[in-house]
């Protein structure tokens, strides 16, 4: 009876009751891994099957060709160089966006006329396609990495600000009251109460911000093409230009894998928060 009651909850937990010994630990690692492997295997299988039917075979490469292409690219330095360049830009741009987004979010959510004035503008800016900013990037910064960073910041900062604002809006009023009565004011109210309370929404905003930053970057990299400094955006567009679909798909796989890794970082942050807040069922088991 009781155990059947649990079934529903169980499916919702992200973490099993902590394992008691090594074997259990291995089992839980395996539990996290096998679905991923199975998914990859399934996708490859389906892809190969489609490929075998010969459907659109002039334009759609098979998994074999694509993977060997990826393998070859991984042997050469070009791809790694491109990954390094792009990641460096992404990280710097994202860091800037986080700084600016958090600042704007904190300011706007706190000052009422400012919020009325520019609150909606934030989403408005978010919907502006990167391409629209290109002329401004060129005009203001010329042709250099700063122009790319400008495009990234304009793409990502709004989501980060929006995430923070959502978090502030959903800070439980009871805690807010408790904090104010305690004597927390202005900055310290922010630092000790509103920031931590809005952390989950902020992290969600960061995650979205990363996606925006990355996509803006992919577009922005075409703006500034620097000799002997390949980047993923340029590689992707070059491969498309040269109708080299196997390479296109290979680069897409690289982008996907980077996205997966970044998601895992955010996932870890998220789980850390939920464990801390006691929002993760099962986390307290012995």
């Amino acid at each position, binding site marked *: *009876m009781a*155990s*059947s009651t*649990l079934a529903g909850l169980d499916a919702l937990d992200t973490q099993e*009751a*902590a394992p008691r010994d090594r074997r259990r630990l291995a089992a839980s690692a395996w539990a996290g891994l096998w679905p991923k492997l199975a998914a990859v295997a399934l996708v490859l299988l389906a892809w190969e099957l489609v490929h075998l039917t010969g459907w659109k075979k002039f334009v759609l490469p098979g998994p074999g060709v694509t993977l060997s292409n990826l393998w070859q690219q991984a042997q050469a330095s070009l791809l790694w160089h491109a990954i390094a360049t792009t990641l460096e830009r992404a990280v710097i741009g994202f860091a800037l966006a986080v700084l600016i987004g958090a600042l704007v979010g904190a300011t706007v959510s706190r000052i009422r006329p400012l919020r009325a004035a520019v609150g909606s503008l934030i989403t408005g800016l978010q919907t502006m396609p990167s391409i629209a900013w290109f002329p401004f990037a060129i005009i203001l910064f010329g042709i250099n990495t700063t122009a790319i960073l400008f495009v990234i910041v304009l793409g990502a900062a709004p989501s980060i600000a929006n995430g923070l604002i959502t978090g502030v809006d959903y800070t439980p009023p009871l805690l807010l009251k408790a904090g104010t009565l305690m004597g927390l004011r202005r900055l310290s109210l922010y630092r000790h109460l509103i920031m931590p309370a809005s952390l989950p929404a902020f992290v969600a905003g960061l995650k979205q911000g990363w996606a925006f930053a990355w996509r803006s970057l992919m577009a922005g990299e075409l703006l500034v093409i620097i000799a002997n400094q390949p980047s993923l955006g340029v590689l992707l567009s070059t491969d498309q230009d040269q109708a080299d679909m196997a390479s296109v798909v290979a680069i897409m796989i690289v982008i996907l894998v980077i996205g997966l890794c970044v998601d895992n970082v955010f996932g870890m942050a998220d789980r850390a928060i939920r464990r801390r807040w006691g929002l993760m069922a099962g986390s*307290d*088991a*012995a």
Partner: protein
Amino acid sequence: MTTAVTEAPAAVTLSGVSKVYGRGGTAVRALDQVSLAAAPGEFTCLIGASGCGKSTLLSLVAGLDQPTSGEIKVGGRVALMFQEPALFPWLSAAANIELALRARGVGRAERKSRAAELLDVVHLSGFGGKRPHELSGGMRQRVALARALAQEADVLLMDEPFGALDAMTRDLLHDELDRVCAGRNLTVLFVTHNVREAVRLGDRVVLLSSRPGRVIAEYPVPIQRPRRIDATAVAELAGTITDRLREEVSRHGK
């Protein structure tokens, strides 16, 4: 979980149940070798110091958590009234109750009238349209009680259900609860800090020791129903239990 074979068809059986939260240096042993059986229809009150593991025990019985060791058997559907109201903030008081009815498969028309009835039982008719945040603490607790009753479970677990209520309202609800229990063959595990309340309501009062929780004494309540909380018999037994409890506390340190 279901391997134990108990001789009597008890509604709830705990055999040697322990529960440890966390591990290593900061582990907290909340329950230690608790064995307890409640017969169908029995009203068992649990009393113990703050943090002795009463809520833990109820959540284990409800199947919301697994014991570290020991076995638990529960016969029938379980409803749990949490220590906090745990109402759904996006639903009005009435809708909260109706949702419980709906989960049981009660039809739409009947839901409405049953919810109104239950609100009346907890003396909140007229407040069905309010959302939880528009209710006072005691009102929320009463909505939670109505919701628990709406589930018409075989085993009702109640965690300090009347803690936030004034004496008068509480007395009225004691009577209502008596009525509900008499009507159905309801097994109740009832946690309270109020020894008189325990004696007023229970067929049996179980005393738990301070951390880790262990059963230290059981008192059957031989007083004839209907009982009144200010009856002398109730006061007397409550006095005995309180003395025993005080003794336990003084032994275990603050």
